[in-house]
């Protein structure tokens, strides 16, 4: 990854009639990074990708690729290539001709085309399948052909529109690693659109989260998980317990807050939060909570409750604990170390939390 910005979006907006799909999008993508645009369906992420590809012109703002203003430059003249959600494998061409399609548009010598197609297919582990018909391919193979067909063009940026959504779970997980390796080997900038937070987190260097046409936060996956800038992102990425809290003291990087169940805690201020005040909201990830029969020692905050539901996931167990003073049960997850489920619904139980794992989410936007 270099410091050079390969894509710059400046104040990009897209309107369809009265509907604004993307508004005031500002984003710099570094050369060689794997960037994901993450968000629920209809948040404008695909529209943003299509404006980079050139399938849609922004209603306002500018798109720069490698320093060049892309205004008026159609998709067929941009240094980008796309992997489509449906893969869009040409059904009337075999694998070799699918991959060679773009190279033939460039008037490259046949021997070079053949060589580059062979290399591209080997790269996606489909070596020797040139003659295979497009309709005889499995889902995973179609995905690989789509990748090879785009990468053979040696684009400056590869755009991927929900590239794994059509695959089953096992294959999807395998392809996540393969695509990540491929991207790192080639050093090409990948921009992926996805609604799957796990996909985005496992593959990306950085993630941009979009809601309602707006880019809300851009960060590396661990930062995004640990320091989400608001409640929406906190609940969209991973699981989160939300609690109201009252700020009694504020000093530099820290806050002293009173919580309804864990007492008084000194927590870290979240620099990503835009709006804050006296009444804030805090978040606790389920895996950060300790759960035990006895009152846990050495925890900054503890509370007693009653187990309401138990959900066994295999790799871990989720307990929903009803606590006095909190309406919604608090979720706590425990790794399944010993293949046992230690607590039953109705059991009295203690929860413990360290103040360093509590996330400041800024001003409480939920009406109490």
């Amino acid at each position, binding site marked *: 990854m270099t410091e050079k910005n390969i894509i710059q979006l400046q104040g990009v907006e897209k309107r369809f009639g009265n509907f604004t799909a993307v508004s005031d999008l500002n984003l710099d993508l570094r050369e060689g990074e794997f960037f994901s645009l993450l968000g629920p369906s209809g948040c404008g992420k695909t529209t943003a990708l299509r404006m980079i*590809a050139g*399938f849609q012109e922004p209603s306002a703002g500018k798109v720069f690729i490698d320093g060049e203003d892309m205004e008026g430059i*159609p*998709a*067929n*003249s941009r240094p*980008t*290539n*796309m992997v*489509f*959600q*449906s893969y*869009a494998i*040409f*059904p*009337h061409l075999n694998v070799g001709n699918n991959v060679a*399609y*773009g190279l033939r*548009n*460039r008037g490259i010598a046949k021997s070079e085309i053949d060589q580059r197609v062979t290399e591209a297919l080997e790269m996606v582990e489909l070596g020797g399948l040139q003659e295979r018909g497009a*309709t005889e391919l499995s889902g995973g193979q179609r995905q690989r052909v789509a990748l090879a*067909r*785009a990468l053979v*063009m040696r684009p400056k940026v590869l755009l991927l529109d929900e590239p794994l959504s059509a695959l089953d779970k096992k294959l999807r997980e395998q392809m996540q690693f393969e695509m990540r390796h491929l991207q790192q080997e080639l050093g090409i900038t990948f921009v992926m659109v996805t609604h799957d937070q796990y996909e985005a987190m496992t593959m990306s260097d950085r993630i941009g989260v979009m809601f309602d046409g707006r880019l809300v936060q851009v960060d590396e996956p661990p930062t995004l998980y640990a320091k989400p800038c608001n409640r929406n992102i906190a609940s969209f990425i991973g699981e989160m317990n939300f609690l109201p809290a009252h700020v009694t003291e504020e000093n530099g990087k820290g806050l002293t807050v009173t919580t309804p169940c864990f007492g008084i805690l000194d927590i870290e201020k979240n620099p990503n939060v835009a709006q804050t005040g006296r009444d804030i909201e805090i978040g606790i990830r389920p895996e950060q909570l300790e759960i035990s029969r006895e009152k846990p020692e050495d925890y900054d905050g503890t509370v007693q409750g009653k187990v309401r539901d138990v959900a066994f996931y295999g790799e871990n167990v989720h307990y929903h604990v009803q606590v006095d003073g909190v309406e919604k049960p608090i979720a706590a997850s425990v790794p399944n170390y010993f293949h046992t489920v230690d607590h039953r619904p109705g059991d009295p139980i203690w929860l413990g939390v360290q103040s360093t794992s509590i996330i400041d989410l800024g001003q409480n936007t939920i009406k109490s």
Partner: protein
Amino acid sequence: MKRPNGLAVYAFLYLVFLYLPVLFLPLFSFNDGTIVAFPIKGWTLEWYRQLAGQETLIQALMNSFLVGFVASLLATSMGLFAARAYVRYRFRGKKASEGLVMLPLVIPGIIVASSMLVLFISIGIKPSLTAVALGHTFLALPFSVSIMKSAFDDFDPSLEEAAFDLGSGVIETFRRVTLPIVAPGIVASLLVTFTVSFDEFVLAFFLSGNQPTLPVYIWSQIRFPAKLPNTLALGSLLLLASVALLVVAEYFRRRSTKSTI
């Protein structure tokens, strides 16, 4: 064996009433006699043999081929573009225009024929094969539009985007991607519209002037009892050709809806 129920009997009778009269045509075309009545006098291929020598018949056949060729080509190319627009885009007046295109299916042929005659004469096109071909294009358009629409329905729009993304221009994309993928639909449309034109009588009767198409020729021959067996033989051949064409067209239509998974 399962006992036939009421509906099965109904369906059987329905098919008999529908197709029995049609089957009389080939049956009597092999009858060794000029009177079309039972009992069959004997079997002969004479009527078929005589067809080969009739020059006016051959001429009418050629006229029909020419008209069918032109009409199917015109209707299919217009249908191709119209169908792509109907399936891909939303635009003002789309529903109205789709309805208008289908109108020839429901307007009585005699109305279409007489108004076309008036129209063509007023703009200087005399009754001729040209007039028939234009009229048949109009009649065949609904068929080609609906066949091409079903071909485009199953056509993933990102295929065209992918071609464009890989550097093709608009025309190049159409030639290398769109056309090959909808090709089975185009073949189906050509065959069906050709059949529509080939069998059409009313419009051809009004517009053909002194260049009769085959159906018009057959109608003129049917008035002479001695020629009747010849006409039956000709009709049987046409029946066979039409069925064959439609079977082939249906094969291509099904292939076109299967080709883009």
